[in-house]
């Protein structure tokens, strides 16, 4: 029987690309977003909820386990970004970003790890960003939220290792997603110049990293932050 991967934020962008990729490889995929998804596949199950809502996370993950099967891979992709000068950043932006990026990642990780601990382990992949190591101007709160995700990743990797659960994070460079479409072109060009490999990322770059982290032979890799494009 195929294993099940749960991916957050599958309505569009990177989450959608990962869902379609794993479905094409024969995985059963469960995904979520706050709004409806038009992704149609016999092995795809969509749930509408906010990853920062504790009750919704608990109820949905129990439902997935009971009606489909326990989760083998969790990909915490859902995230929000907001570019603004620090002095012009409303508290509401801070709260929204931390709620989705940090609280959402934590809740999904906690509840999925409980399932995994009873079903022989699993793989958890969080999403960070090069905004953190590059200290990108205009992204102070977003970068801070991703720094929190990185710290959570490293500590969770230690605490969950005994349960045969690996926890790693991928830090993509900018790619053509909705998250960056409002960022001025010259800002993106300046950002790309800080990478060792100076180009925008692609979905394939991320899919390759996901494949690497979930393959059976990667069971000795945990607590790692994998930035793409040669950022460190």
């Amino acid at each position, binding site marked *: 029987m195929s294993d099940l991967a749960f991916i957050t934020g599958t309505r569009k962008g990177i989450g959608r690309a990962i869902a379609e990729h794993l479905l094409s490889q024969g995985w059963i995929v469960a995904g979520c977003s706050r709004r409806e998804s038009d992704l149609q596949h016999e092995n795809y199950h969509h749930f509408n909820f906010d990853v920062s809502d504790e009750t919704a996370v*608990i109820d949905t993950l*129990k439902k997935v386990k009971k009606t489909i099967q326990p989760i083998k891979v969790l990909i915490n992709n859902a995230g929000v970004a907001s570019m603004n000068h620090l002095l012009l950043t409303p508290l509401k932006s801070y709260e929204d970003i931390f709620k989705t990026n940090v609280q959402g990642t934590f809740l999904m990780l906690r509840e999925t790890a*409980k399932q995994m601990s*009873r079903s022989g382990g699993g793989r958890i992949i969080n999403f960070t960003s090069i905004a953190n190591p590059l200290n990108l101007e205009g992204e102070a709160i977003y970068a801070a939220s991703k720094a929190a995700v990185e710290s959570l990743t490293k500590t969770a990797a230690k605490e969950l290792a005994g349960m045969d659960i690996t926890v790693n994070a991928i830090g993509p460079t900018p790619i053509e997603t909705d998250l960056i479409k409002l960022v001025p072109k010259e800002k993106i060009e300046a950002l790309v110049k800080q990478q060792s490999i100076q180009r925008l990322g692609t979905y394939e770059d991320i899919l390759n990293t996901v494949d690497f982290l979930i393959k059976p032979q990667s069971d000795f890799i945990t607590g790692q932050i994998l930035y793409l494009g040669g950022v460190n």
Partner: protein
Amino acid sequence: MRIERQTLLELLQTILRELGEDLGKETLLQTDERTPLFGSRSDLDSMNLVNIITEIEERLSDDYDINITLASSSAMSRTRSPFLRVGSCVDYILELIEKQNNE
């Protein structure tokens, strides 16, 4: 959602027995209401207790369709931890189930 106290006690004892078999700790094979779950008199370390709490939550959900979260902030802030002994843990779980039934 209903579960008898005796059933809950036996569930917890089963989990402890299975853990005892895994860890080779004989004290966990025969437990009673007074068996300590943590503290200097307990044979369990903090990770063992984490596993037990997770296991109770999952089995209550899978086998009895009871969905509760044991590690709440109210439990952690109590002067006397509900996880001190087997008996107090069972009482605490019943309290949570009752509370959820009344909501």
